[in-house]
C-alpha cells in the first residue's frame, strides 16, 4: 500500500514529487501487448536504483485467446519499496489498462481512490463488445471512484513513430514502451537500464531498436510535459543487506541452485523432464547451460523422465527430475522404486492449482500430501519447500545435500507463485558454500550394497565402472546388508523401519525453526513454502499495532525441524495459513496432537496480506 509521506519537493515544471514508501503497479493488456516485458523492465530499473522489489506475473490460461478478449488478458504486478518487502503487494496502487478487457478483469483489484491509466484509443465499440461491456466505462461514470487518466497511448505512440519506417503493426507493438516510459516518469526512474536492454535485444534491427527507444522516451516526455499529471512520485532506496544483487524468478533460482549443487558435488547434473506449466522454465534454463556439462533429457513422458534420472543417479550423476502436480502423480511408482533402491534423487514439483489439469498457470500448495504419501507401501521421502523466489536457490542446494548424504529421493516443493514471481537476489559468494561429498564406495573388501552408515543410516553409493563392486539392486524387498532379494518376514519389517528411520535421521541436519517475535505466548502464525512473504508482513503489521503475535516459517517439511513441537507448545494459539484445505495442518495435528487453526484459501492465488491480518485480528482481536 502506498504510504504518502509529508515531504514534498518541486520539479522544474512545477509538478509535485511525493515521496512514497512503497508502490505497487499492475500493467495489464492483451497477451500481444507486451505487458510482461513492460513489467519486467520496470522491475529491473527499480531494482537497479536500489528499491526492494517483488513481482508476480498473471499469465492467461495456456491457450492464446483472440485479441482483445477477456481470457486473453495478461498482467504483471510489481511492488517496489524503500523497505524490505516480502510480497508483490495485495492490491495495485496503479493499474495501467491497455484495453477494455484488461480493465474489466483487473479493476476489481484496484482499491477505491487508486490510480487508473487507460489507453483510451482502445475503448472502441469492437473492443468493448469483446470485453462484454454494455457501455463505455470511460463514459458511463462507472469509474468515478478512481483517479482516472485517459491517455491516447496508441495514437501518441504512432504519432511519435510515424517517421520510423516501420509498418503500422510494428509501430503499434511499441506502445508498451510508451506506457512504460510514462510510468518511469511518474515514479522518477531513469531510462538507462531499459534503453540498454533495447539495444541488446533489437540491436540487429536498427529501425525497430530506434522505434522502441523513441516510444519509451516519448512516454516519459509525455509525463513530463503534459499537464495531465499533477504529481509524480519518488520511492527512496531500500536498506537492503549490502552486496551484489540481481533480479531473479523462483524457477531461475531453482535452476541455478541445482547447477550449483552439481558443482559443489563435482558430479554432472542430469535433468530428465517432460514439459509442463509452470515447471518448464527450469528445463529451458538448464538446457541453456550446456557449458556446465548439464545434461537435459526431454523425455517422452514424466515416467521416462524420472526413470532416466534414477538411471543417471545409479551411474553417479545428480539425477534430477522436475514437473508439476499431474506429472508428480505419474512419477509416483518410480519414486517408490528410488525409495527402495535408496539412490540420491531430487524431484522438483512446481505446484499448480488442481485437482487434475486444474488451472495450470495458477498457484496452490495442494501437492504436499501427494508428496508425502503418493506411493504404494510405506515409502518415506524427504521434502523441502523454499519460502521465496530467491530462497529457491538455497533449498535447491539443500535438496541435493540431503539426497546425497542420505541416499534418498527428496521432493523440492515449489509453486507457481514462487516459480514465476521474482525478487532481488543477493548473489552468493560461491566460495562460501560448502562442498557436497558424493562419498562413493570404492573398496571391494568392505562393500555391501545395503550396509549402512551408523550415523545417517545411508547405504553406500557404489557406481558402475568401479572394479569389483558389481552388485544388483531393484524394487523387490532387499535383504539387510547384502541387498539380495528377500521375502523373509522379519527382514521386511526391519527394512520398513530402517527406511523410515533414515528419513527421520535427516532431522539431525535440519536447523531449528526460528520465531520472529515473542519467545512464547500469544498467537504463533506458522507457515511453509510461498506464504512466507504475506505471513511475515501481516505479522509485522499486527505487531506494529501492538498485537501479541509471532511468526515462524519452516522449509523442511519431512522430516520437520527438530524443535518444532516444542515451539508450537509454547504459544496459546497456532495459526497455519495454507493454499490448500489444511494439508500440513493435518500432519502437525496428528504428530503433536495440538489444535492448530487453519486459514485456507484455494482460489489459485496467493493470500493477500490483508487476509492474514484479518484472520489474526479474528483470533486475538
Amino acid at each position, binding site marked *: 500500500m502506498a504510504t504518502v509521506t509529508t515531504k514534498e519537493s518541486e520539479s522544474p515544471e512545477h509538478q509535485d514529487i511525493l515521496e512514497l514508501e512503497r508502490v505497487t503497479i499492475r500493467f495489464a493488456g492483451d497477451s500481444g501487448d507486451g505487458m510482461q516485458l513492460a513489467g519486467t523492465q520496470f522491475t529491473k530499473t527499480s531494482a537497479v536504483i536500489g528499491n526492494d522489489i517483488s513481482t508476480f506475473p498473471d499469465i492467461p490460461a495456456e491457450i492464446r485467446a483472440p485479441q482483445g478478449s477477456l481470457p486473453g488478458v495478461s498482467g504483471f504486478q510489481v511492488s517496489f519499496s524503500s523497505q524490505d518487502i516480502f510480497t508483490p503487494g495485495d492490491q495495485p496502487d496503479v493499474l495501467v489498462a491497455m484495453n477494455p478487457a484488461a480493465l474489466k478483469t483487473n479493476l476489481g483489484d484496484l482499491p477505491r481512490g487508486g490510480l487508473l491509466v487507460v489507453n483510451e484509443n482502445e475503448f472502441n465499440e469492437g473492443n468493448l463488445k469483446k470485453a462484454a461491456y454494455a457501455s463505455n466505462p470511460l463514459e458511463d461514470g462507472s469509474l468515478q471512484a478512481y483517479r482516472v487518466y485517459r491517455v491516447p497511448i496508441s495514437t501518441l505512440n504512432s504519432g511519435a513513430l510515424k517517421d520510423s519506417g516501420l509498418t503500422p503493426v510494428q509501430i503499434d507493438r511499441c506502445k508498451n514502451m510508451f506506457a512504460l516510459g510514462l510510468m518511469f516518469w511518474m515514479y522518477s526512474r531513469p531510462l538507462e537500464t531499459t534503453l540498454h536492454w533495447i539495444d541488446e535485444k533489437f540491436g540487429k534491427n536498427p529501425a525497430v531498436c530506434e522505434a522502441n527507444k523513441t516510444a519509451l522516451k516519448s512516454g516519459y516526455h509525455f509525463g513530463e510535459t503534459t499537464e495531465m499529471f499533477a504529481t509524480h512520485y519518488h520511492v527512496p532506496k531500500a536498506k537492503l543487506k549490502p552486496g551484489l*544483487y540481481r533480479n531473479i524468478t523462483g524457477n531461475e533460482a531453482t535452476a*541455478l541452485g541445482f547447477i550449483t549443487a552439481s558443482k559443489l558435488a563435482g558430479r554432472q547434473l542430469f535433468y530428465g523432464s517432460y514439459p509442463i506449466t509452470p515447471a518448464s522454465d527450469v528445463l529451458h534454463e538448464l538446457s541453456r547451460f550446456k*557449458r556446465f*556439462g548439464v*545434461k537435459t533429457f526431454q523425455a517422452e513422458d514424466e515416467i*521416462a*523422465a524420472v526413470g532416466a534420472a534414477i538411471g543417471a543417479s545409479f551411474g553417479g550423476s545428480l539425477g534430477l527430475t522436475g514437473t508439476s502436480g499431474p506429472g508428480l502423480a505419474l512419477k509416483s511408482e518410480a519414486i517408490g522404486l528410488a525409495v527402495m533402491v535408496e539412490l540420491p534423487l531430487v524431484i522438483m514439483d512446481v505446484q499448480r492449482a488442481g485437482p487434475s489439469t486444474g488451472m495450470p498457470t495458477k498457484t496452490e500448495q495442494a501437492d504436499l500430501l501427494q508428496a508425502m504419501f503418493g506411493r504404494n507401501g510405506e515409502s518415506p521421502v524427504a521434502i523441502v519447500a523454499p519460502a521465496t523466489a530467491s530462497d529457491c536457490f538455497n533449498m535447491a542446494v539443500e535438496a541435493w545435500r540431503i539426497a546425497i548424504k542420505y541416499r534418498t529421493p527428496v521432493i523440492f516443493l515449489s509453486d507457481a507463485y514462487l516459480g514465476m514471481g521474482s525478487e532481488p537476489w543477493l548473489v552468493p559468494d*560461491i566460495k562460501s558454500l560448502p562442498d557436497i561429498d558424493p562419498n562413493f564406495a570404492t573398496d571391494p573388501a568392505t562393500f555391501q550394497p545395503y550396509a549402512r552408515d551408523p550415523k545417517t543410516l545411508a547405504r553406500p553409493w557404489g557406481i558402475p*565402472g568401479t572394479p569389483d563392486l558389481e552388485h*544388483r539392486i531393484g524394487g523387490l524387498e532387499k535383504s539387510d546388508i547384502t541387498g539380495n532379494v528377500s521375502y523373509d518376514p522379519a527382514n521386511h519389517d526391519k527394512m520398513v523401519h530402517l527406511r523410515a528411520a533414515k528419513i527421520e535421521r535427516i532431522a539431525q541436519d535440519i536447523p531449528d525453526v526460528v520465531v520472529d517475535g515473542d519467545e512464547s505466548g500469544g498467537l504463533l502464525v506458522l507457515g511453509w513454502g510461498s506464504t512466507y512473504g504475506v505471513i511475515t508482513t501481516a505479522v509485522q503489521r499486527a505487531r506494529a499495532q501492538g498485537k501479541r503475535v509471532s511468526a515462524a516459517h519452516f522449509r523442511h517439511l519431512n522430516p520437520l525441524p527438530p524443535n518444532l513441537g516444542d515451539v508450537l507448545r509454547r504459544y496459546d494459539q497456532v495459526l497455519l495459513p495454507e493454499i490448500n484445505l489444511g494439508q500440513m495442518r493435518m500432519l502437525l495435528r496428528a504428530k503433536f496432537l495440538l489444535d492448530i487453526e487453519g486459514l485456507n484459501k484455494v482460489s489459485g492465488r496467493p493470500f493477500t496480506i490483508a487476509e492474514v491480518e484479518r484472520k489474526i485480528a479474528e483470533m486475538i482481536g
Partner: protein
Amino acid sequence: MPVREDKGSVMVTAERGTGPNPALTRKDFVTDQEVRWCPGCGDYSILAQTQKIMPELGIPRENIVFISGIGCSSRLPYYMNTYGFHSIHGRAPTIASGLKASRPELSVWVVTGDGDALSIGGNHILHVLRRNMDLQIILHNNEIYGLTKGQYSPTSELGKRTKSSPYGTIDAPLHPLSVAIGAEATFVARAIDTDAQLMHHCLERAYQHRGASFVEVYQNCNIFNDGTFRDFAAKEVRADRTITLEHGKPMIYGKEKDKGLRFNGMHIEVVEIGKDGITEGDLLVHDEARPDPTIAFLLSRMEWPEYPVPMGVFRAVHRPTYDALMTKQIEDVINAEGEGELRDIFLEGDTWTVE
C-alpha cells in the same frame, strides 16, 4: 576406473570391435544367486549365451550393466555378475537411457519381456529406438505373461485362451520387429532360445552395433505357453521353416538349401531353386544396411506357414547415437563458449550493488 573412451564418436560409421578379455571367463559372470526359473524354461539358454559372450566382448566387467523391468525374463540381471538393476514394470529403457546418456562409456544391456517391453513399456521402446540410444535390448518373447501366471500378452496369437481370455483373445498381436522398424530402429534381429549359435551371433552383433540394438528372442515358456514356436522351431523342421538372414548373401534356406525367397513385383514369394529354371541369381540378396527400412519391414511380416520365419539380423544401419550426440553437443558448446563459471550465470541480466 578404467573407462572405454567412446566420446565424440558421433559420426563413426564403423561397428564397435570385439575381442576376448583374457582376464575373464564365463564363470566370472555367474552370481551366487540361485536361478529361479521353472526347469526347462527358455530363459536358461538365453542366460547361458549372455554369460558366455561377455568375456568375448572385451569389456571390463565393471563397465557392464544389465537393466530389466519386471517379468520372469527380467530376473536375468540377478544372475549376471555385473552391475544390475531390476527395476519396475516396463521402465527399463528409461533407466538405461539415463544411465547411458550420463555415462556413455558403460555398456548397457536391457532385458525385457513381451509384456514388459510391448505392453506397459511400449512407449519407452518407441522412443529409445528413435533416439538411437546406444543400448542392447534383449526381448524375451514367450507370447505370454509368465510371472503373473499366464495371461495373454500383446504378442499372443488371436483367439488364444488364457486365464484372462477364457473364451479366446480378440486383440490382434503386434509384430515386435515391425513395431521396432516403424519406430526408426537402426538394428533389429531375431533369435530363438533353442539355437545357441544364432543367439550368440545376434548378441554379438547387437553389441557391435553402435546405437539401439533390438533383439527379439523367441523364448519357450514351458509352463504357460509350451510349444508356441514348435511348429517352425522344432529341431526336425527348423531348417525348412526358418531362414537365417546373412548380409550380402542370397536368401536361401531348407535342409537341402533348395528353397529361396524371390522378390516378385511388390511382394515376396517362396521359390524352389532348380525348379522352373530358378537359380540363386534370381533370389533376393539380403542387405541389412539398406538405408530404407522397407525391405526389413517386409521381412518382419513373414510368418509360418505362409513363409519361412526369418532369423538373424534384419537391419543394421548407422545413425549417430543420442548419447554420443549429447556428449558432442556439450563439447561443442564448451569449445565455443568456454567452460561454465557459476559466477557468470549468477550475474546474468542486470545486477546492482547495495552498499
